[in-house]
């Protein structure tokens, strides 16, 4: 009987298995953004039609900023949800869409004429607004309360449950 393998096993193998087992439960989508609880990064953006928007103008009303793209398939999945929410909450919550630099006016137009538009869409021509918000894979949605503080971030397509909870946080 040699104790050495037992000791090494207990020291290395057991914690490793425990950590890996715990890691199975990690949901990568709920890791919070460092911006939560912080003021929303300001922006000035133009739409493809030439309208301009500034974050400051939207303050005082809760805001949902959705980063999407016309080529993004999960954005299609969440589209009906956002449409319904924007319709139900007209006046009490602003919904703003932001598309990335590689998107084009025609592509966005095709997308919205096919599926409808739930709100105004602005063009992040150099990608700097996405960076300021820490956007990764599209779509991502940020929920900002009336005071201008980011309360929630969701990565990936929204589901009804997530959307409802997130909206509660900013209403």
């Amino acid at each position: 009987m040699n104790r050495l393998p037992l000791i090494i096993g207990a020291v290395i193998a057991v914690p490793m298995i425990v950590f890996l087992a715990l890691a199975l439960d990690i949901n990568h989508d709920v890791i919070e953004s460092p911006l939560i609880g912080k003021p929303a990064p300001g922006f000035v953006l133009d739409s493809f039609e030439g309208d301009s928007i500034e974050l400051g103008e939207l303050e005082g009303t809760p805001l949902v900023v959705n980063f999407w793209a016309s080529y993004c398939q999960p954005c299609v999945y969440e589209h009906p949800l956002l449409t319904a929410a924007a319709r139900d909450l007209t006046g009490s919550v602003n919904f703003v869409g932001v598309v990335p630099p590689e998107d084009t006016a025609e592509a966005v137009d095709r997308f919205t004429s096919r599926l409808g538009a739930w709100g105004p869409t602005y063009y992040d021509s150099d990608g700097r607004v996405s960076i300021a918000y820490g956007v990764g894979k599209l779509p991502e949605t940020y929920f900002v309360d009336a005071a201008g503080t980011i309360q929630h971030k969701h990565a990936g397509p929204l589901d009804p449950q997530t959307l409802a909870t997130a909206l509660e946080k900013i209403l």
Partner: protein
Amino acid sequence: MLIRLTIGLTTALVLVAVALAAQVEGRSVDPMAALGTPAGPPIEGDDLTEQTLSLGSKMRCPVCQGASIADSPSQQAVSMLGQVRDLFAAGYSETQILEYFERSYGEFIRLQPRARGFNLIVWLAPLAAVLGGGALVAARARSRAAAGTGSSAEDLDAYLEQVRSEVRE
């Protein structure tokens, strides 16, 4: 002296004005304000390209599988590298730029973890293993050399003879 004083005062005034303007604008903050003032002089040319790529290779592309923004051909990485370039051009330092991106993306953006706190494990554990292993190898080499000073047991080992006849050329 007077010139320096003037520059100092003007800068201070501008900063106060900007801060006040931000107050008037409401709570939303200009994300660039977090950067502060550039730590160095503006750079350009090859120097700029080199620094951009060097820092870019230390930043993770958020939409890729572990590639850096200097490597990734994705649009997101291209935008980020563009901003890194602009910030270097304006004179911001590597630390300032990293902290700017870290503000929105978190530590995740750094492809090499900062060597402090809990993260020290990832830097020190391999070193400890090499040193420990090296000590074991050295100790073994020394003890074997001492233990085996007598007759070489090697040639008498029947097992070895057997192996040799089977394995050797």
